[in-house]
């Protein structure tokens, strides 16, 4: 097993609040790692620092051997990290296809001449990508693949989540960061979505996932390993069953007697 993502002493402060407190976290290739912890323990902050939305105040992040500490979000994406957001960040007036294509930025020809003047070549690229988006959405829900030209605004929450995950997957990233994919969904919908994610992973062998989740059923089912955060520090690490039995973890969630 080789290391894909490695955070060393990662620190992020907001004023007096230390959201990440010299966090060491390692993710190996093809793993599914669960990132859990009480509200405000720094899970989403970790994602935001890794993807470059917040600059780190200390420590380093290495991805596939390269240093990406304080890299701009677009550089992080180009290196091969994609993410979803806790609260859906789709562009609602745009179509399903458009939203998925936003995620494929690095594979689309962005040249002015190509886009404005060589419409034949553009059409070929458009058609190839249309088929790719159809195929990817088909894995999640074949029905959605037939509705690519409809705006996202009219879709239920679960379908929007699916599209958000497709947007993150279309560029075939090496690392996928899922930020609470079950938020706002029913228990059954969550189960459905997790089946889809596992199916995607089985298809592409070269995908590593870090998932932030409050549904412990999800964590137990899909992760190989869990990292528990509390007040920005790692308090436990290991397979879900071990971690769940850990006294410190129980205290973090339930409080001390």
């Amino acid at each position, binding site marked *: 097993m080789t290391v894909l993502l490695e955070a060393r002493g990662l620190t992020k402060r907001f004023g007096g609040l230390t959201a990440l407190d010299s966090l060491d976290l390692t993710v190996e290739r093809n793993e599914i790692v669960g990132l859990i912890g009480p509200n405000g323990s720094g899970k989403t902050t970790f994602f935001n620092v890794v993807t470059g939305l917040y600059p780190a105040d200390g420590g380093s992040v290495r991805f596939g051997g390269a240093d990406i500490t304080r890299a701009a979000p677009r550089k992080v994406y180009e290196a091969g990290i994609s993410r979803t957001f806790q609260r859906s960040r789709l562009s609602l007036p745009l179509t399903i296809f458009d939203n998925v294509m936003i995620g494929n930025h690095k594979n689309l020809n962005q040249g002015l001449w190509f886009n*404005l003047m060589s419409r034949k070549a553009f059409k070929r690229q458009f058609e190839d990508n249309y088929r790719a988006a159809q195929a990817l959405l088909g894995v999640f829900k074949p029905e959605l693949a037939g509705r690519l030209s409809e705006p996202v605004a009219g879709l239920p929450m679960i379908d929007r989540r699916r599209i958000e995950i497709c947007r993150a997957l279309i560029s075939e990233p090496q690392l996928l960061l899922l930020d609470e994919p079950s938020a706002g969904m029913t228990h059954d919908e969550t189960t459905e979505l997790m089946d889809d994610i596992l199916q995607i992973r089985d298809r592409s062998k070269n995908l590593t996932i870090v998932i932030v989740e409050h549904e412990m059923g999800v964590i137990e089912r899909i992760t190989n390993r869990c990292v528990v955060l509390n007040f920005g520090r790692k308090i436990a690490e290991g397979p879900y069953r071990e971690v769940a039995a850990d006294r410190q973890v129980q205290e973090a969630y339930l409080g001390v007697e």
Partner: protein
Amino acid sequence: MTVDHDASRRAPLLPGLLTLALATVYLIALLAAENQTWIIVLLVAGTVAVLAAGWFNLLPRISRSFADREDALGVVAIAALCAVAAYFHDDHFVLLLVITVMLYSVATLGLNIQFGYAGVLNFAGASFFGVGAYTSAVLNTHTAVPHLLVLVIGGLLAALIGSLLLLPVLRTRGHYAAVVTIAFALLLKTFLEVNDVLGGPQGLQVPAANILGWSFNNNIEIGGVALSFYLNYFVLGVLLLVGAFVLVRRLERSWIGLNLDALRLDETAASCFGLNIVRWKIVAFVIGNFVIGIAGALFGMVGSFVAPNNYTFADSLILVSVLLLGGIGSPWGVVVATIIVVIVPEKLQTIQEYRFLLYALLVIAVLLYRPEGLLPRPVRRYFPGWRP
């Protein structure tokens, strides 16, 4: 089976064709009308006709026709425009009005790239229009630069000065960026007023366009029929309008259009998927200003006179209100809204002095009851009529 399903599923051409034909006849009637009562009757009739079409649910069929058959209907629209010009071939006043509509449309199409797609507010649209007009005033008077090239230089200068303005705009967000552009509009007007080289408050004369030895101020005579010299400018104006329209359309229907929409709707998400926010804002702003500048350069030659008072903050507001009225991001809407905003006050002499009041009421009414504009922007179709 070799039946062409694609063609059979496309919306019919007829609703769009009928709409264009009716609109053309209506426009000719309105432009020809002299009697104030008759003009009011026509305006009321037009409003009632549109409301009735809405009531009988005809509008969705028309818009589907336009969405699926845009290329064909675009050609028909050019023909309709030429029909209007042919009908008024010797009427200087009406032709000037038609040219004004076209050039304002071109400028608003430029603004649409900036504000409609990239979401970069520009309350200095008229200033950049003025930069183009002053360019033709100075170059036509003092240099022998070919006048077609002067138009391009007008666009380039507007783009260049625009990119200087961009430096502070990119460092501010939202309302603050808008305030920066307002400040620029006021600054430019003051600069023009105190600058003697550029004519000060009195402005400058603009020598007429002269292309390949053909002076645009010559009246034309074909087969014994005398034509207005404005027809020269009309032809150039049509070319410019078609060019700007095609540019905006292709831009929207490309990955660039998608980039601009993505950064307007959610900068954070867009940057997490590789978008260079600053770069695409610059691209949109520069292209938009280039279009506005070209329109302004031609407008300067048409009007043969430029002065600071013609390119004020209030004029920029008119451009923005045209965009809001027509439908942000909708090029057809821009043309329709410009027709309303330019022609109605000009024909309805009684409301001339109240025109700004009228614009304000119109914009408020649209924002309240139809916030997406008269002709809302449809969802993106990269290739109209294309089916997977």
